[in-house]
């Protein structure tokens, strides 16, 4: 297989909990939120890699680490073989940002309400010094808007975001990311706030752009169904770690980790014949706090198969159980 475009190695991000002045003075050790706690994966060119999990599992933090909105506590991120965690100079960071862009969840919040669409799209050009004259930039902006099918562009460039529909806003946000011609896009729940039909529309658009422009996506979502539809690869995160990783369809059709099973069982499907059957979920309890991570396998307090003396003691490793299909569980095949 080809070299991965992006590679993440043992990525960690701990957020210190805010503590009082007195505590710091007394030298009490600070507590940390273990948002991302040792994550490894590779993403191949022009493929979609989905990162799936519940809120608070660290999937968004991983995305932000990759676009360098956050600096990792530990670990490495390689883009095209180059370690990007060490770059610090302004020029290098700018060059990196031209290659890696991000799309956000809430299209309303991700556009400055006081910016016209023109300003929104001009901002990346100005930052990166693309287009000498306004006319040149205008040309680029028109092209970007046409690409995301906000047409005719001249009708939209002088509007404010609130004058657009939800779908159009997300298109503009995508255009803003694409105008720099990035190679890699982190899409953080890009469709979760949209209505079904618009959701389909945006997913189709992103798919089309992947083909046309050859971009690679990291698709962060909590929705297994869209992940199956959109992604080639899928990784399931729980409490800051990837517990299972593999080709999207394979992972859904043959889940190895108990948590993945629970997640899949929880997905509602538009099949009314099952409406009177109560399917019990293979999971118990609630997500523990990311401050005090359970010992051993971090899923064990919720796992219905957990074995005492093993799961609560020993941290499992990510093991390849099938071709390209890895899971982090002591009991794969044994439950």
């Amino acid at each position: 297989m080809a070299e991965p475009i992006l590679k993440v190695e043992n990525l960690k991000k701990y957020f210190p909990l805010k503590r009082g002045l007195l505590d710091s003075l007394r030298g009490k050790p600070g507590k940390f939120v273990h948002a991302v706690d040792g994550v490894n994966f590779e993403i191949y060119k022009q493929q979609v890699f989905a990162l799936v999990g519940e809120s608070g599992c660290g999937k968004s933090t991983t995305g932000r680490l990759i676009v360098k909105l956050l600096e990792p506590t530990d670990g490495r991120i390689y883009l095209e073989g180059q370690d990007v965690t060490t770059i610090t100079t302004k020029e290098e960071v700018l060059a990196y940002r031209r290659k890696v862009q991000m799309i956000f969840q809430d299209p309303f919040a991700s556009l400055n309400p006081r910016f016209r669409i023109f300003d929104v799209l001009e901002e990346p050009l100005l930052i990166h010094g693309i287009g000498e004259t306004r006319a040149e930039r205008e040309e680029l902006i028109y092209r970007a808007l046409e690409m995301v099918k906000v047409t005719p562009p001249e009708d939209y460039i002088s509007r404010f975001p609130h004058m657009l529909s939800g779908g159009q806003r997300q298109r503009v946000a995508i255009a803003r990311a694409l105008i720099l011609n990035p190679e890699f896009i982190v899409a953080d729940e890009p469709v979760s706030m949209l209505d079904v039909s618009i959701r389909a529309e945006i997913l189709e658009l992103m798919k089309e752009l992947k083909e046309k422009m050859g971009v690679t996506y990291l698709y962060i979502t909590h929705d297994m169904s869209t992940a199956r539809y959109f992604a080639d690869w899928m990784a399931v995160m729980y409490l800051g770690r990837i517990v299972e990783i593999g080709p999207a369809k394979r992972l859904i059709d043959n889940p190895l980790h108990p948590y993945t099973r629970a997640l899949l069982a929880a997905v509602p499907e538009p099949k009314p014949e099952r409406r009177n059957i109560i399917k019990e979920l293979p999971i118990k309890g609630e997500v523990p706090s990311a401050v005090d991570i359970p010992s051993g396998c971090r899923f064990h307090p919720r796992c219905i198969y957990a074995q005492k003396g093993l799961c609560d003691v020993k941290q499992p490793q990510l093991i390849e159980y099938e071709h390209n299909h890895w899971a982090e569980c002591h009991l794969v095949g044994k439950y």
Partner: protein
Amino acid sequence: MRWVDLKDSLKSFWSSYRRQKAGMLGLILLLLLIFVAIAAPWLTSPNVPKVWQVGNPLAPRNAPPTWINAFSHYKQSPHEVISLSNYFVGENKSMGYTIYKFKIQYPFKYDYPPKDIVFTGLNSTAQNPTEAPTMSMIIERPHEPGVKTEEMRIFSDVQIPAGAVIQVASLPAAKASVLVWLAENGVYKLNIPPGVPPDMISYLIMQNQTLFGYMSSMDIMWVIFQRIVDEKGHLYPLHDVLFHQTPRALEGTYTLYVTIKAPSNVKVDYSNAKLIMVGRTYGFMGTDQMGRDIWADLVWGVRVSLYIGLAVAITSVLVGVLYGVTSAYLGGWADEALQRFNEFMASMPIFPILILLGMYFGGHITINLLIGLLVLFGWMGTAKVARSMALQIKEQTYIEAAKALGASTWRVVFRHIVPQLLPYAFASIAISVPGAILSEAGLSFLGLGDPTAVTWGQMLNAAQQNNATLNGYWWQVLPPGLAIALVGFVFVLIGVSLDTVLNPKLKRS
């Protein structure tokens, strides 16, 4: 920010602000206030600040405004300043003297006579007192049946050194003349041998104990402007003429004949000479205990109030926004420290401290010092809000998006954060103006303000010292307070409208 953007946003701001009725009213009033502040020297007179300190001895004290006549049963004569040069009727020379003649028509239609007739402002080239011009005055009363002589000699040949002020009401010669006139008309009997010169007459009057007593306690203004004959055609007795209680004015046109006599070699300049009918009411808003014109002071007060209000509001909001944004942007320990300092300052009780400092600075805080102090203790609220707003904006996804695009700190702060804070800053400038004006007024009221500045607080301080409330001098109490309230209201109107226009969150409710 590009110029087109600025123009654009100003345009759109204006188009939505225009729809705020209250805001437009506030804006119009503000423009009016600014006009008044600038035009104060022309609207009133440029020496108002000087008069503020020394008072105006030529004006009545504690006089109510003239327009109260419209609401009261008895009309009180207003303050009138008559420029002598307008009534010059001719001059002639005789025996080495030049005589200037003036004839003044004074229509009197009030119940209460003027308090006094004052002559002032005559200049001459006289080198020594003997050369000084002399002055005579005769008043011709309107016709009153039963009165023999309408012509009333007030005084003759009184010397007027340079800068002299003649106050008729307290001039002994004038009192004597009036008593003589009363005798001439038969109000009482005074035995004067014929041919006695006028100054001898006053001597004679002083010899008579009763008359002397009358002379020292009488108010000749009452005699000049009152009837001396009753409805039945009988003369009132002397005591009644001099000391009656209720007004029975003799209305009509009084003619004042003023003659000024000076040696021919002495040049007399009467261009500034004035005859002042000292009123019982004064102008548009009356006077205070020092004869100061309240209207003029009020107009001048706009200057200082606007200056203080705007200077304090703008500076402290700027400081606050800067402090808040810095605090939010730095984050971490710096933020913590800045916040603690803010909290510390915010828990200082400002007013007692200002009083304290007022006493320390010898009982008076000058305007600029006051501005400095009010800024020093006035930025914390803005800083707190600016910080939390900046933090909130900083957490917005579009800031993250801008950062992901590679936007620099500078760009994030000045293109995304500050423009969002500006509306708040403008609104809070407008809203904090009244507070500063109130603080100045309060300190001045306690006597700790700048005594050289004509401010509304100082005016109210004067009112309090004058015991104006308990004395019922409402014209001294009402205007300054209303002015403060008006300016405050104007800025609150503007502030609230700005807030509504610029703060989309409020648009909902």
